[in-house]
């Protein structure tokens, strides 16, 4: 059964140095608050996994939390590059970052394999591309029935998966809707799962077939309103496109980035304080 906890308690209890961690979300419901808390608690040597690492991974990588990244598309969606990610790959700053690069189709299949407790994913993919040359984990398997050669890649199994969702009930059953990405599979492929939610409700009132994660597959659930900001939560708030654009400037410069992390994450108590700070900055038009 999921335990209700504060985000700080959940991260401290369930995320450890050296863990393999996925904070999933496909543009929607990105667990920003949880990422900030990982930075705030100074976790190190994480092997991060994510199909679409975006700003929160840029912040984690730039803060030196990660030693490895497994991914299939790393960018600032709608804006451009992830400059902290690029600085880590191109210049090893603030530390070298090992990368394991795959395609979306592969990683999606690999989460499915992890959720299904299978050792590998299988897909029609990679033939003729340069990926197998740079990633020796991309191999092949021959179909025992037809002889067709298919790509085989390792399943994703994480120590911890963290997602953000719209609601959880008092027992810790979680409901999410809208663009779902691979969140359900990522939770089921994890040893432990932390879910932050917009609100705690008495009952979910979810229709049949809704995407519900039962309490007993979730380790900890935390109420963090606006916890996906600056991404969006369908039915709650819009994406803050201004922040995504502003991040391009902040992240280009090491010094500016370090200052931003210190002021907005390390020197704030929690995400609520961060949001207050951001709100004040916006009122004074010193973005963000």
């Amino acid at each position: 059964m999921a335990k209700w906890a504060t985000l700080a308690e959940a991260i401290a209890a369930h995320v450890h140095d050296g863990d393999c961690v996925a904070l999933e979300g496909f543009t929607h419901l990105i667990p920003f608050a949880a990422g900030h808390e990982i930075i705030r608690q100074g976790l190190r040597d994480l092997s991060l996994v994510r199909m679409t690492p975006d700003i929160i991974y840029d912040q984690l990588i730039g803060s030196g939390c990660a030693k490895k990244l497994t991914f299939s598309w790393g960018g600032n969606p709608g804006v451009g590059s992830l400059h902290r990610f690029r600085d880590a790959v191109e210049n090893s700053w603030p530390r070298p970052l090992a990368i394991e690069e795959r395609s979306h189709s592969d990683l999606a299949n690999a989460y499915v394999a992890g959720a299904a407790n299978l050792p590998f994913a299988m897909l029609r993919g990679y033939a003729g591309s340069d990926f197998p040359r740079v990633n020796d984990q991309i191999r092949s398997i021959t179909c025992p029935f037809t002889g067709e050669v298919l790509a085989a890649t390792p399943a994703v199994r994480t120590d911890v998966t963290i997602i953000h969702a719209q609601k959880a009930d008092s027992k810790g059953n979680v409901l999410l809707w809208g663009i779902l990405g691979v969140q359900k599979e990522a939770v089921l492929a994890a040893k432990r799962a932390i879910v932050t939610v917009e609100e705690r409700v008495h009952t979910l009132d979810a229709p049949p077939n809704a995407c519900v994660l039962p309490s007993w597959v979730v380790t900890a659930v935390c109420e963090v309103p606006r916890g996906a900001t600056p991404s969006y939560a369908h039915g709650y708030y819009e994406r803050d496109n201004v922040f995504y654009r502003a991040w391009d400037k902040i992240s280009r410069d090491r010094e500016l980035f370090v200052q931003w992390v210190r002021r907005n994450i390390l020197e704030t108590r929690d995400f609520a304080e961060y949001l207050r700070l951001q709100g004040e900055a916006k009122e004074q038009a010193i973005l963000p």
Partner: protein
Amino acid sequence: MSLSYTSDEMMTVAAARMLWNGAVCFVGIGLPSTAANLARLTHAPDAVLIYESGPIGAKPSVLPLSIGDGNLAETADTVVSTPEIFRYWLQGGRVDVGFLGAAQLDRFANLNTTVVGSYEKPQVRLPGAGGAPEISSSAKEVLIVVKHSKRTLVSKVDFITSVGFGTGGDAREKLGLAGKGPVAVITDLCILRPDPVSHELEVASIHPGVDRKAVADSTGWQIRFAEKCAVTEAPRATALEVLRDLKARTAAAHGAQRDQA
């Protein structure tokens, strides 16, 4: 309304024309998404737009900024998970057209969105594959939209992220890929199509007012012009009007959010 238009508008209109009504189209973000939505709003109202984040049959009222914008989900016939999009819909053989962009494209229409320079010590680390490798192998055919420059159209890509025709000739056929590969590359100067035998891209149609030298000077290999190289039909007033409306609505929507924030 004047019929003057920009080279970007010419590119988008030419790309939109390639999409037929009823086509099931897997759409990349950016230029492909603009072209696919223009097609849907003009001659192809029944085109089915699929985005890799999960929306099937998306009918966005404004252009999405990111591949997972809420407007895509709200206007879609259905929204499925990302594994389902790739497994049942793309690999399942249900996609007629993959609509892609790229940072680099070579003479055999191989695409690079991974690195400029060597993989181990890249000059520029690009975002990576996303859905493109399997779109380019599994969609029944592929359309590519890129701005024409020597940096983009190179003789040989630094990294094959998504395979077009490999080393040319029957290389793609030998790989046993499900789809037939790129059928056209639409740029702001011209339309390139693969030669039926060598599969090297050649200019099939030049946009009005563009001369051959400009195309040759902007291409990173000795570009050939098809024997029957045509002149692309200029954009019609209706298409331009719809495109400009769409862009104005998009700017207003994303701008409005800026004022709120």
